C-alpha cells in the first residue's frame, strides 16, 4: 500500500514537470527588453457595455495613448472569435502587453490570460480593465460620463501595462502525510478518512485513551445508543490502521513550516518523535464549563454538571424522584455570550431517560429558550413533553434559586407568565453548562499561527465560504475545537476537513499565483511591521549577512498587500502591484 502510494506521488511529480515545460512562458526577450507594444481590446459585451459606453470612441482614444500598438473592439471578447482575434493580433502586431476592457476579472481574467499564454505571451503581461461594472452598469443613465470614465480607466490600464513584467508561477510539493491533533470523535474520523485514502496520519492525543468527551457520556442522542458502543469500533479501526500512528499521552511540542512541509515534534514527556507532514488538522475539541460559584456548585453534593449526570446515569444507581435542570448556566451571559448549542438537547436526552426509567419522577427543565434544533431532535423535545417533563422559562433578571444547606432541597423559580414564584422539590439539580475552549488552545494557536475568536475557540477563514479551514494554507479544523458541536456535526466537519486536507496531498503540489510580496533587502530595516500585519503568517525575520531582514514565504503569501501598505520604508513590493505600476495609474488618472 505504502509503496503504491509513493509511486503515485512520483508519477504526479513527473506529470508536473511535463506541465511546466509545456506551460509556455513566452519569449522573455520579446516581453522584457523590447519597448512595450500594447494591444487594447474593448468589448461591447453585446448591449451590456455597448448599450451605454460608446465603444468605438474608446478604441479610437486608446490608439492615441503612448505605446499602444494596436486597438480594436469586439462584440464578445470572451467568445471563440474574440479570443482568436486577441491571439492573432498578438502575433501579427508583435504585441507584448495585452489589455482587455470588458466585464469583470472575477470570471473572465483567467480566460484572457490563457489566450495570451496560447499566443506565447507570459500571462502576467495581461491587464484587465473593468468597464462593465465600473462604467456601463453603474452609470447606466449617463452614457457620456460612462464613456469618459471608460477612457480614463483604459488610460490607467495602459499606464500600468507599460510596467508589467513577466512572472513565473511556481509549484511547491506537498508531502503526503497529515498531523491530526486531538483524538476525539472528530479527530479519529478525520484520521481514518485520510488514512483510508492512502495517506500517512500521525494522531496525537493528550489523554491516555482515544475518545474525547464522549468517553464520559452515557447514551447519545439522537439514537440513544451507548456512547461506549459507538466509540469502540471507531477506536479499534484507528488503532489497527496500518497507516495511522497514534501518540497517546502526548502533545505537539512544535510545528514549523508551511503547507506541504510542516516539521512536527511530539513529546510524551519521556520521548520525542519528529516527523514531516504536508497538512495539519486541529481537532482538539473543548471542555465542559465547571460552574464554580453558581447555584451552590460544588458545595452542595447533589448539584451536578451534565458530565457528572452522565456518569451517574452510566452507573445506573437508584435515581431520585425530583430532578431540576437549569439550562444556560454560564452561557449566553455577558462574559460568555455564546450558546452551547447541543446542551439543551443533551438535557432533553437525559430528562427522557430519567422519565422512562421512572415515570413518577418529576423532571423540570428551567430554560431561557430551548435550542433543540434539527428534525431528529424536535422529536425528542416532543417525546420529553409527552412523558411529562416540565419546562419553565426563567429570566436572568430573576434567576432561579437553589435552596438547601448541606444538600439542595428545592429550587425556587419565578414563573414569568403566571407571575408567581414556584417552589420545586429537588433531589438532584443539574447545572447545564456549555463547552468552553481547551485551556491550552492559546498555546496551540501561537504554535500553528492560527487565530482564535473572541470566545477562545479556533477561528475559521470564513464563516460561510471557508468554514473548516484556517486562513493559513494547509491547516484545517473540525469538531468542538471550532465551536460546540454534536456528534453529527463533528463527524461531518471531520469528513470535510479531511477532504480539504487531502486535496493538496492528492495533487502533490500547490501552485502559487505570482502576485506575492517580496522585500528589497537594501531598503528593509528589519522593523518587523510586515510580520505583524500579515494575516497568513507568511513573513518572518531572518538574520543574514546584512542583519535582520524580512523574508516572505511565497507559498504562504496570498497577495493581499497588507505588508506593502504597512512597510514604512517601501521595501515591500507586490508582484503585479508594484509602487511604480500603481503610481503610474494614479498619474494617468490625474493627467487627462
Amino acid at each position, binding site marked *: 500500500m505504502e509503496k503504491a502510494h509513493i509511486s503515485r506521488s512520483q508519477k504526479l511529480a513527473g506529470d508536473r514537470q511535463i506541465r511546466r515545460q509545456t506551460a509556455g512562458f513566452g519569449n522573455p526577450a520579446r516581453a522584457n527588453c523590447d519597448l512595450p507594444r500594447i494591444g487594447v481590446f474593448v468589448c461591447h459585451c453585446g448591449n451590456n457595455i455597448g448599450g451605454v459606453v460608446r465603444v468605438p470612441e474608446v478604441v479610437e482614444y486608446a490608439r492615441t495613448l503612448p505605446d499602444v500598438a494596436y486597438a480594436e473592439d469586439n462584440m464578445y471578447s470572451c467568445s471563440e472569435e474574440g479570443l482568436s482575434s486577441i491571439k492573432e493580433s498578438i502575433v501579427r502586431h508583435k504585441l507584448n502587453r495585452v489589455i482587455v476592457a470588458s466585464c469583470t476579472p472575477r470570471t473572465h481574467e483567467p480566460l484572457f490570460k490563457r489566450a495570451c499564454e496560447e499566443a506565447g505571451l507570459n500571462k502576467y503581461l495581461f491587464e484587465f480593465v473593468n468597464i462593465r461594472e465600473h462604467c456601463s452598469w453603474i452609470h447606466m443613465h449617463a452614457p457620456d460620463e460612462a464613456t469618459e470614465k471608460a477612457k480614463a480607466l483604459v488610460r490607467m490600464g495602459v499606464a500600468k501595462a507599460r510596467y508589467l513584467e513577466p512572472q513565473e508561477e511556481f509549484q511547491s510539493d506537498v508531502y503526503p502525510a497529515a498531523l491530526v491533533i486531538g483524538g476525539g470523535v472528530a479527530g479519529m474520523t478525520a484520521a481514518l478518512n485520510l488514512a483510508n485514502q492512502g495517506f500517512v496520519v500521525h494522531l496525537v492525543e493528550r489523554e491516555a485513551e482515544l475518545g474525547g468527551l464522549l468517553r464520559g457520556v452515557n447514551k447519545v442522542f439522537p439514537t440513544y445508543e451507548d456512547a461506549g458502543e459507538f466509540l469502540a469500533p471507531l477506536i479499534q479501526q484507528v488503532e489497527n490502521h496500518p497507516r495511522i500512528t497514534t501518540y497517546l499521552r502526548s502533545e505537539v511540542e512544535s510545528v514549523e513550516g508551511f503547507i506541504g512541509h510542516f516539521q512536527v515534534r511530539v513529546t510524551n514527556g519521556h520521548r520525542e518523535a519528529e516527523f514531516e507532514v504536508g497538512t495539519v488538522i486541529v481537532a482538539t475539541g473543548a471542555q465542559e464549563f465547571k460552574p464554580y460559584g453558581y447555584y451552590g456548585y460544588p458545595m452542595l453534593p447533589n448539584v451536578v454538571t451534565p458530565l457528572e449526570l452522565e456518569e451517574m446515569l452510566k452507573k445506573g444507581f437508584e435515581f431520585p424522584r425530583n430532578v431540576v435542570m437549569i439550562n444556560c448556566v454560564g452561557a449566553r451571559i455577558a462574559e460568555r455570550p455564546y450558546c452551547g448549542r447541543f446542551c439543551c438537547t443533551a438535557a432533553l436526552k437525559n430528562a427522557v431517560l430519567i422519565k422512562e426509567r421512572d415515570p413518577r419522577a418529576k423532571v423540570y427543565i428551567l430554560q431561557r429558550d430551548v435550542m433543540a434544533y434539527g428534525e431528529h431532535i424536535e422529536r425528542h423535545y*416532543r417525546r420529553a*413533553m*409527552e412523558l*411529562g417533563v416540565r419546562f*419553565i422559562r426563567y429570566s436572568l433578571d430573576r434567576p432561579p434559586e437553589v435552596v438547601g444547606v448541606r444538600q439542595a432541597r428545592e429550587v425556587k423559580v419565578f414563573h414569568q*407568565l*403566571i407571575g408567581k414564584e*414556584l417552589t420545586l422539590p429537588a433531589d438532584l439539580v443539574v447545572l447545564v453548562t456549555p463547552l468552553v475552549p481547551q485551556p491550552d488552545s492559546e498555546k496551540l494557536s501561537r504554535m500553528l499561527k492560527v487565530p482564535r475568536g473572541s470566545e477562545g475557540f479556533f477561528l475559521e477563514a470564513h464563516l460561510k465560504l471557508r468554514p473548516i479551514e484556517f486562513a493559513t494554507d494547509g491547516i484545517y479544523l473540525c469538531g468542538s475545537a471550532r465551536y460546540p458541536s454534536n456528534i453529527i456535526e463533528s463527524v461531518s466537519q471531520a469528513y470535510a476537513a479531511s477532504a480539504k486536507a487531502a486535496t493538496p496531498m492528492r495533487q502533490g503540489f500547490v501552485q502559487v499565483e505570482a502576485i506575492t510580496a517580496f522585500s528589497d533587502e537594501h531598503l528593509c530595516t528589519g522593523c518587523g511591521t510586515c510580520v505583524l500585519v500579515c494575516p497568513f503568517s507568511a513573513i518572518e525575520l531572518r538574520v543574514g549577512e546584512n542583519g535582520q531582514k524580512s523574508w516572505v514565504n511565497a507559498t504562504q503569501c496570498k497577495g493581499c498587500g497588507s505588508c506593502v501598505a504597512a512597510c514604512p520604508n517601501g521595501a515591500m513590493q507586490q508582484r503585479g502591484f508594484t509602487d511604480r505600476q500603481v503610481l503610474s495609474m494614479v498619474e494617468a488618472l490625474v493627467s487627462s
Partner: protein
Amino acid sequence: MADTINEIASQCDLFLCVECGKCVAACPMTEIFKDFSYEVSPRGMIEKTLMDFDVLTDIGIWFCLTCDVCTEICPAGVRYRDFVERVRQLAIQRGLTEHGLFCRRCGGFFLPRHTLEYISEQLEDGAIPDEYLTFCPRCRKYDFGEKMKEAIPDRRKALLRRAAKL
C-alpha cells in the same frame, strides 16, 4: 386528586403545549369577558395545570365557551376544550358547584354562571323569560313540547293519538 387532573391533562395532550399563545389570540373569550386575563386563558390554564396548581378550584376553568377554536389552531395538538369539560365534570363530582348553572328540570350542568351573566347583560330586560335560561338545552326543548301540547285543541289530540296507534 392532582393525579386525576394529571391524567386528564395527559389524555388531552396538555404536555405538548409550546406556549406559543395562538389559542389566546383565537379565543373568543378575549372579546367577551372584561375580566379576561392570562390567568384564565387557555394558555394560562394549561401552564398552571402543568405547574401543578389546583385548577379544580380555579375559576379559570369556568370561563371557556367550549367553541374548540383553540384545538383547531393549536400547532402542538393540545385539546384544551376537552380538558376543560372533563375538569368541570370532575369539579362537579367533588361538589365544587358554585360557578356552574344546573338545569331546573334535570339537574344537569349546562352553563358556567359566568357565561350566563354575560348573556343576560347582552339581552334587553325581558327579551327572554328568565325561566328559559334556567333549563339545559334538552329540557328547554322538552318544556317547549309540553307547552305546545297544552296549546293544541283536544279533538286534534285525539286524532293524533289514533294516528299514532295505526
